[in-house]
């Protein structure tokens, strides 16, 4: 650490010197004010004026990993219909270090309502109508990026994020406009592989049991994603 400070103190005066007009430093590194010398007069007899053009490589081939794709599995509760296993896939695009947009598709199944169990009568829904499938389009923000430490020698990048969005849920024979919001924790095993723990609430209106009401459907899931 100390040597870095020493270097820093050595380098800073060098920079100051460079900025104050040391031509050699400028030519060597190409920074500072670009003082273009006045065009040299063409000597008599020379008829060709040389034009040297520097080749600029504008777009270097650097592996850009802003997309994240993965699968998740967890438990989702459908209001009045019990909890069941939910699974799905998720695709995210990281716009900045903070913001990302995300699309997800998930599927679960509703159980029997308490009414159906107690009355023992005809079921409210057919088996295919009990399937719940949703898609969501969300905007998320990495609210608390940081590092997680495992023991003495290992550090992993992590982020606590929030996300909210809208989509459509197919349940009980109809597509329903739904909104969702939630929070999750991303734990990066490496720069390209991440583990997720995610909790969210899916809301939609349903009029299946007489009057129309807004239902909350909580979902907790565990996922793994790959950046590409």
């Amino acid at each position, binding site marked *: 650490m100390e040597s870095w400070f020493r270097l820093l103190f050595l380098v800073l005066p060098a920079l100051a010197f460079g900025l104050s007009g040391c031509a050699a430093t400028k030519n060597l590194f190409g920074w500072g004010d670009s003082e273009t010398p006045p065009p040299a007069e063409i000597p008599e007899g020379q008829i060709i004026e040389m034009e040297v053009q520097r080749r600029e*490589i504008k777009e270097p*081939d650097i592996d850009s990993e802003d997309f994240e794709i993965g699968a998740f599995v967890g438990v989702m509760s459908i209001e009045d219909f019990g909890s069941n296993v939910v699974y799905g896939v998720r695709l995210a695009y990281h716009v900045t270090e903070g913001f990302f947009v995300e699309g997800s598709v998930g599927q679960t199944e509703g159980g029997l309502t308490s009414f159906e169990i107690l009355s023992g009568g005809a079921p409210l829904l057919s088996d295919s109508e009990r399937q719940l499938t949703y898609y969501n389009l969300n905007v998320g923000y990495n609210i608390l990026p940081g*590092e997680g430490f495992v023991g003495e020698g290992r550090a992993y990048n992590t982020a606590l994020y929030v996300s909210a969005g809208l989509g459509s849920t197919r349940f009980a024979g109809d597509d329903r406009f739904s909104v969702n919001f939630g929070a999750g924790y991303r734990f990066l095993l490496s720069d390209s592989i991440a583990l997720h723990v995610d909790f969210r609430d899916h809301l939609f209106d349903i009029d299946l049991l007489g009057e129309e009401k807004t239902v909350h459907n909580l979902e907790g899931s565990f996922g793994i994603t790959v950046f590409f």
Partner: protein
Amino acid sequence: MSERNTTTIPSTPRLTRFPGSAAAILLLLLSQAASTAVAQAAGEYRTVAVADPYLELHTGPGVGFPIFHVIDRGETVEIIMRRTDWFKVRGPKGTEGWVDRAQMERTLQPTGSQIEFAQANQQDFTDAKWEFGLLAGDFGGANIISLYGGYSLNPNVSIEVWGSQILGNFSNGWMGSVNVVHETWPEWRFSPFFTLGAGVIHTEPKSTIVQGEDRTDQIAHAGAGFRFYATRRFILRAEYKSYVVFTSRDDNEEVEEWKVGFAFFF
């Protein structure tokens, strides 16, 4: 770096006679490369030389991650990958860390010229050919979620293909349409546009409603809106469209639509 290249260095011919001379040449070359701040790209990664007094390495791709290492001016680093505006680099001693774009732009290529990293800006917002987006809003009292893809014929005129899902209280459906969009001032950050289009709409009554049947009708629409350049490849967009649905009944239906959303250009 092949050995054949190294023999072309005039000051090292004698070394080639000794075993293990390749390593010696390599070392010599490396020191030479460092001293002139010019390095050949070694291996699969792009190599750049540090031109700032020092390059700051963060532990992660974000401003909050601490700086744990610095690489001095003149030394070379390999660029391993990029995430948003952060670059993962490997220093001469194998130390890996994340550097922000502003600092990376002050590094030098092996040719000695300054490096430029692709970064979408407002000019690309005007000139970009492809655009993909997502909008949501109100379609005659129902909710609507739309995805679209657009292709610019020139900065002013583009063609868009839209697919929408409509989720109402009494009926659901989908709609597909093709639009022509005209931007009057495409170079403005806040760029208004006008649009005309045609397509089809399919509606099906909800299962709790007894009467009614599925219908597919043709539609035509006119509209206006604006695109706003937010950051990087990101656009915010809002629009109003007035639809005419050519029903098989005597009267045509008119529907108004309001939507907001975001899009990306490429």
